[in-house]
């Protein structure tokens, strides 16, 4: 009885049904990858020369100098932390109405289209490019950084908030709507309780991203610890640069740990 059934089974291909076509695509991809690697233009002499510089950089790390540039470092840090906090608060505050507008289940079509395009623009343009733009517009300093990070926060928070709102439990929304509640009341009673923990979690996470970004955009002139870091690298003071990087790493770790703890607590 059992002998009548096959004893061998192979998993049928799932994505591309034709085995031969799948093989051909795999081979083609491998060839493309090798060809792409071959076009990388490596100057080995320059690499050898660069080793010594890289080594000096690493040495600076191993002997970080916190003291001789401490005033610059602390000023940069305070600037960065100020920029981080203000831009996160402002960014999140602007993100909430945009996020609600970008949720298909709550907003009329035209508002949805507008809000989604704001998000798309904010997400499409990289922070550095925005920073360069704002620095050109408002001059060097943390104000340009604050605007950059606020703008970047909008794309991040509004998109994730809108996606979360689109996934919410419709039954709860329907139940509140059925009581005769107005639109704002539905948002306050049925939507807000469902998305609040995630919104707080995302905001804390964004705070931590904004701090890291503040170090990067400082390099193009938007103030903060990044500007201090850039100056010390320009002066070949790798020991001070090492100290700055260590401080950034420490703060990011603290923020990371704190935000994951907070998010767990909110569940």
């Amino acid at each position, binding site marked *: 009885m059992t002998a009548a059934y096959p004893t061998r089974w192979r998993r049928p291909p799932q994505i591309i049904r034709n085995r031969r076509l799948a093989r051909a695509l795999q081979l083609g991809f491998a060839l493309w990858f090798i060809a792409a690697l071959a076009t990388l233009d490596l100057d080995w002499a320059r690499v050898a020369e660069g080793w010594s510089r890289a080594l000096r950089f690493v040495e600076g790390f191993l002997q970080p100098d916190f003291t001789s540039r401490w005033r610059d470092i602390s000023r940069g840090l305070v600037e960065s932390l100020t920029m981080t906090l203000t831009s996160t608060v402002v960014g999140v505050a602007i993100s909430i109405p945009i996020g609600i507008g970008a949720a298909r289940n709550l907003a009329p079509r035209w508002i949805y289209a507008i809000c989604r395009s704001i998000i798309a623009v904010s997400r499409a343009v990289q922070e550095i490019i925005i920073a360069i733009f704002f620095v050109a517009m408002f001059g060097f300093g943390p104000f340009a950084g604050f605007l950059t990070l606020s703008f970047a926060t909008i794309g991040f928070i509004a998109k994730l908030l809108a996606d979360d709102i689109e996934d919410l*439990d419709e*039954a*709860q929304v*329907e*139940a*509140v*709507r*059925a*009581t*005769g*509640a*107005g639109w*704002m*009341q539905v948002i*306050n*009673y*049925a939507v807000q*309780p*469902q998305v*609040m*923990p995630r919104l707080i979690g995302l905001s804390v996470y964004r705070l931590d991203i904004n701090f890291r970004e503040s170090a990067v955009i400082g390099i193009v002139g938007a103030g903060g610890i990044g500007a201090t870091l850039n100056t010390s690298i320009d002066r070949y003071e790798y020991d001070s640069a090492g100290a700055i990087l260590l401080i950034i790493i420490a703060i990011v770790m603290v923020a990371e740990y704190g935000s994951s703890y907070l998010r767990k607590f909110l569940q």
Partner: protein
Amino acid sequence: MLDLNGLTKTYKTGDRAVNDVSLSVPKGQIVGLIGPSGAGKSSLIRCINRLVEPTAGRITLAGTELTGLGPRALRRQRRRIGMIFQEYALVERLTVMENVLSGRLGYVSFWQSFTRRFPPADIARAYALLDRVGLLDHADKRADALSGGQRQRVGIARALAQDPELLLVDEPTASLDPKTSRQIMRLLTEICAERDLPAIVNIHDVALARQFLPRIVGLRAGQVVFDGTPADLTDIALTRIYGDEDWDAMRRAEAEDEAETREALAARDAMVLA
């Protein structure tokens, strides 16, 4: 009290969920709506408070036509219609009290509801309703801390907080065990009797409908195919609603189920006494 006239709902996909339904519910009457899944029970009751927009036909509640109202007028009319949901549909992260008070949203301003400063009379009423459904001690708990039966009681209190003139009840017992289901159905019928409230109850469980509801309407493919008392609901009528099935076996199973419940209750009582 409630009159449906030629009510029809056709979805964009072309499904005609409700097909030319005319129905009249007098004051104080509870109507059970039975029918197979997809027969349009859910769409029908959602058409009444226009959570689903009817395609054609008229709905009048105590002389007011509900079809064709603008958004503001519709919200005012929704206040008069309490709704109780399958799987409770409480806002899980709000407290029991907030869930009950949300029944007053149509009566208060946004600012009052946002700051949770409801009029004293509303708060007193909410406490009274929680007392009526036996949950006075649970007012400050979060809704997701309650059991299924307790949640449905909160759902009932929320609907009653609206001071409704009509109750729409969508599968109130779908996720409850047989005993809790009966308690909820008993509570519903008692409350409707106390307040002379008409109600439409969508219900899957034919036995439960028979036991508690004086009038049963059978829906099949969006059309009313039966309208009568539980006694009229013969095998022939059931076949007309659901198609062929061994109804006699179902009834025997029901009887066994009842006997079992009684035995279990008796055993529990015996234990309590001993």
